[in-house]
């Protein structure tokens, strides 16, 4: 009922643990029902090791949070040398997340990954915590399209997901460029650039904003882009209960990504699967893909 295909992968559920939330997938948490997880996107890897940002990296921001991990990671060489951690025996697929400054870096990482047999890669074009004043690749339609063309030209057989930033004037334009460049799927949204003021500590905390407050932003992005592309969208942003995931799917997401909501609710993936099943049973749907985009104008006319 909840199973679906993403590229050549069969996912046992449309719920994906997004990058940065679940480390490299090496953890085995006794309390998780792994059968409710379709895939894990590993924490973003870069070509060279990165120490990441100084403290504080985590800051509560109203009913959400800021993070500025700054892509701490051991680099692609170390990552590859350990082999891809796998939860395959529990039916969970792995998607490897990578990030780089340009096509050269990305291609070199793709090389290492495809040598390892990795079939699905997410390219994080949208981390707000790395270079404060340099734009992200997904802030430019031209750079996004070009990067994907470069990657798909050489690694046409790899399923490539582009992860996009909401911090753009028009996310549809970026999404279309990614699709035209050859992206096989889109993940949206990454965190929203945010800032908190620590009055007592007399300091400013910058970071990527995530959690429940960004849900209307993520939904808007998914809804708008769904009408303009054909590739599957992983809907992300502020999912903290089952109902939120259903909203994303009805608005146009093919699958949903769990981010910081998992920190708050460790049973989130099970709750999502439960809620999706309930909705489908009550409304007589057999496959979760049948309800994807159901309330989007692309399929459906609203009263207005």
């Amino acid at each position, binding site marked *: 009922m909840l199973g679906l295909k993403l590229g050549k992968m069969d996912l046992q559920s449309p719920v994906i643990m997004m990058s940065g*939330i679940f*480390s490299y997938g090496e*953890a085995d948490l006794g*309390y998780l029902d792994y059968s409710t997880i379709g895939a894990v996107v590993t924490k973003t890897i870069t070509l060279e090791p990165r120490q*990441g940002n100084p403290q504080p990296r985590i800051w509560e921001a109203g009913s959400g*949070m800021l993070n500025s991990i700054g892509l*701490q990671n051991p680099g692609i060489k170390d990552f590859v040398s350990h082999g891809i951690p796998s939860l395959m025996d529990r039916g969970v697929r792995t998607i490897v997340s990578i990030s780089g400054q340009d096509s050269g870096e990305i291609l070199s990482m793709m090389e290492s990954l495809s040598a390892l047999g990795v079939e699905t890669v997410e390219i994080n074009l949208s981390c707000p915590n790395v270079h404060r004043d340099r734009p992200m690749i997904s802030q430019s339609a031209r750079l996004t399209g070009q990067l994907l063309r470069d990657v798909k030209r050489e690694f046409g057989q790899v399923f490539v997901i582009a992860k996009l930033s909401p911090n753009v004037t028009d996310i549809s334009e970026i999404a279309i460029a990614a699709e035209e460049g050859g992206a096989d799927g889109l993940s949206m949204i990454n965190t929203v650039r945010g800032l908190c003021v620590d009055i007592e500590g007399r300091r400013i905390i910058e970071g990527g904003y995530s959690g429940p407050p960004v849900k209307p932003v993520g939904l808007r992005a998914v809804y708008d882009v769904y009408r303009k592309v054909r590739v599957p969208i992983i809907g992300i942003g502020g999912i903290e209960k089952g109902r939120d995931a259903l909203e994303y799917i009805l608005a146009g997401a093919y699958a949903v990504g769990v981010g910081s909501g998992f*920190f*708050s609710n*460790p049973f989130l993936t099970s709750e999502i699967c439960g809620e999706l099943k309930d909705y489908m049973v009550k409304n007589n749907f057999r496959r979760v893909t049948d309800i994807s985009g159901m309330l989007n104008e692309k399929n459906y006319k609203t009263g207005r």
Partner: protein
Amino acid sequence: MEARNLKITGLTELSAGHYLVELENSFSTMPLPGQFVHIKVPPFFLRRPFSIAGGDAEKIRVLFRVAGEGTRALSCMEPGDELNVIGPLGTPFPVREEWKKAFIVAGGTGAAPLLFLSSRLLSEGREALFFYGAREAGHIMFRLLPPGVDFIFTTQDGSYGEKGLVTGPFEKMLRDGLLPDVIYAGGPHGLLKNVAGLSASYRVPAFVTLENRMACGTGLCYGCVTKIRSGDGWDYRRVCKDGPVFDAADIEWEES
């Protein structure tokens, strides 16, 4: 590590703004001194981490101070309410056979895991001298002091014990040549850094517990890292998973 709804079996205000909450231990594991629990306090998004201040197969005790909105909400809960808790988390304080005599240095609520530790040490027949500093007399959690442990108190306002910081009598004791086999410490960053320096000078191993801001609490997000020496430099290691207890000599101390 498990995630469960634990029932509150007791919640007492020990002194102004300081509370002891007792939870039913429905985990299948016994908590160890130095470990912590990660508690969801509705309606806040991020969980709040608290050291385990005591416990056994039946109970988990947490000692906390109202520091902000989340701890205020926690202090307003009632016995019978349930809390979603992830735990026990993190690495406990190391205890070696040959460490017969320990100095424990605690500042404020940093005392919580050390109270748990000291009763453990005592029950194993070891000797522990507990240096316990607080802002004022009312902040010292007398009701939680394990019987049989020797304490030396300081308060910043002199309202109980010696006036001044807890590192005063601690350092004096070391200076007087009364060296323990091991030092354990918890509390504000300045205190821990100080203890680390003294531990190096007097060549006594020291283990400190750190408190960084956490998101996952389970090693997944790299939010809580601290600088740990490695080769010529340092690496960011996770307080929640690689700690919260670290060898003081491994920590790259920063200004705070």
